[in-house]
């Protein structure tokens, strides 16, 4: 196909109007571990599978879900190292915003700034796009919010979304199960069930990660013990 002749340079459009490197980045995301997020009436939940390459890896040293500010958290699908860079940049931007305006950064602003960073890397020389899609969950004066940011820098607000390997099945499952007035605990159960759907092997409190935001607006990553309680409720 004619596109492949234009896939050598990030900053060159193909005849079909695509930036092929971004398409490849999305493929990298699509082969990453499944992650999902659900916006409830009184909070947000984000979750991901945490499949480690070997049983010898110390799973307590790996944390895929990270806090950006006390009331905003993020999870990813794709390349872990790229995620770490974005988390660092976003945290710094949130601090700079606070230093400038003495107001805690609203969720939409942080999403916009992170997306702007990702877009920068699709229009500069000598760099490649980030190989991650992010799910940013936040709770501010506009209520609970969930945003997805893609390698191209485009972002969308979702009521519920999934990314990674099992995206189509997970999304179908979420479409069936999502209700507007869902409570956060229901949303957590739904999230676990969605992850379970596509999981190869036995799901347990050590191979998934869940982050939640309740009405108290404090982002919290659940401990394995807390995840175990939710898993038992789901069984």
């Amino acid at each position: 196909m004619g596109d492949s002749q234009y896939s050598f340079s990030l900053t060159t459009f193909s005849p079909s109007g695509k930036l092929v490197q971004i398409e490849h980045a999305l493929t990298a995301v699509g082969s990453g571990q499944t992650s999902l997020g659900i916006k409830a009436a009184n909070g947000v939940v984000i979750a991901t599978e945490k499949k480690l390459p070997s049983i010898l890896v110390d799973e307590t040293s790996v944390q895929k879900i990270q806090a950006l500010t006390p009331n905003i958290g993020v999870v990813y699908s794709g390349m872990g190292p790229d995620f770490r860079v974005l988390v660092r940049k976003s945290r710094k931007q949130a601090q700079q915003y606070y230093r400038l305006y003495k107001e805690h950064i609203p969720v939409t602003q942080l999403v916009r700034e992170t997306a702007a960073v990702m877009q920068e890397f699709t229009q500069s020389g000598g760099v490649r796009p980030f190989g991650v899609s992010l799910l940013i969950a936040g709770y501010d004066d506009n209520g609970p919010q969930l945003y997805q940011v893609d390698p191209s820098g485009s972002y969308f607000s979702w009521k519920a979304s999934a990314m990674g390997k099992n995206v189509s099945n997970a999304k179908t499952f979420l479409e069936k199960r999502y209700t507007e007035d869902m409570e956060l605990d229901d949303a957590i159960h739904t999230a676990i069930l969605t992850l379970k759907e596509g999981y190869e092997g036995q799901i347990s409190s050590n191979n998934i990660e869940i982050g939640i935001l309740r009405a108290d607006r404090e982002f919290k990553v659940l401990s394995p013990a807390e995840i175990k309680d939710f898993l038992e409720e789901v069984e």
Partner: protein
Amino acid sequence: MTGSMDLPAKGGFDFDLCRRNNMLEKNGLKLPGFLKTGTTIVGLVFQDGVVLGADTRATEGPIVADKNCEKIHFMAPNIYCCGAGTAADTEAVTDMVSSQLQLHRYATGRESRVITALTLLKSHLFRYQGHVSAALVLGGVDCTGPHLHTVYPHGSTDTLPFATMGSGSLAAMSVFESRFKEGLTREEGIELVSDAIRAGIFNDLGSGSNVDVCVITKGKTEYLRNHQLPNPRTYASSKGFSFTKGQTEVLSTKIIPLKQKVEVAEGGDAMEE
């Protein structure tokens, strides 16, 4: 906004305009004054942690600019910092280090240490060679125990069991030197700090108004804003003021009837857009 927080900075202030400013001053231009905090700030270590104290008067030369300002600044949930010197400098430097500590907490996943705050502050102040006029009393409790430090505008620091800074530091230090002992209880610590600040308030012109106290222990911080108010307003009259007619002497009267100056036309069209 990119580049506003790039570390390390190129270094110090830009002194290109100094010669011009000196020339202007010689020619009679009055340079703008700045808000200093006069101030008495103190800190001491007691058996469970640290107690910090400060007065609340901000002065602009001989004028009291703010009767109830906040001189105890937040650095981290377990670290607070009292500031003396130029108010803008203490605010800016504590805000900046507080922000850096937050980023550091996110990166490490750990509680901030007092020594980290101390090193960030002293490095910044040293780089500006004393031009950032901030004299600080930094105190907090971290995993290595309670710590109290003083930081001077040129970037030197001391580690002490009790400390005072500011124009009222001598008055406050006299109270500490006579009554401080190791192993004070929380109540004794708060009382000693309040007494020291009050000594500064009543004996130093640059300090006044109220006493702010901050108690930091392992896992808990209590910010007692306006813990004592030894200078309440005593002169406001609750009856208010009444002025009877004839109290003010009329020197001259001039009446200009406006009707004769203005032509009032009836009707007319509405204003066109």
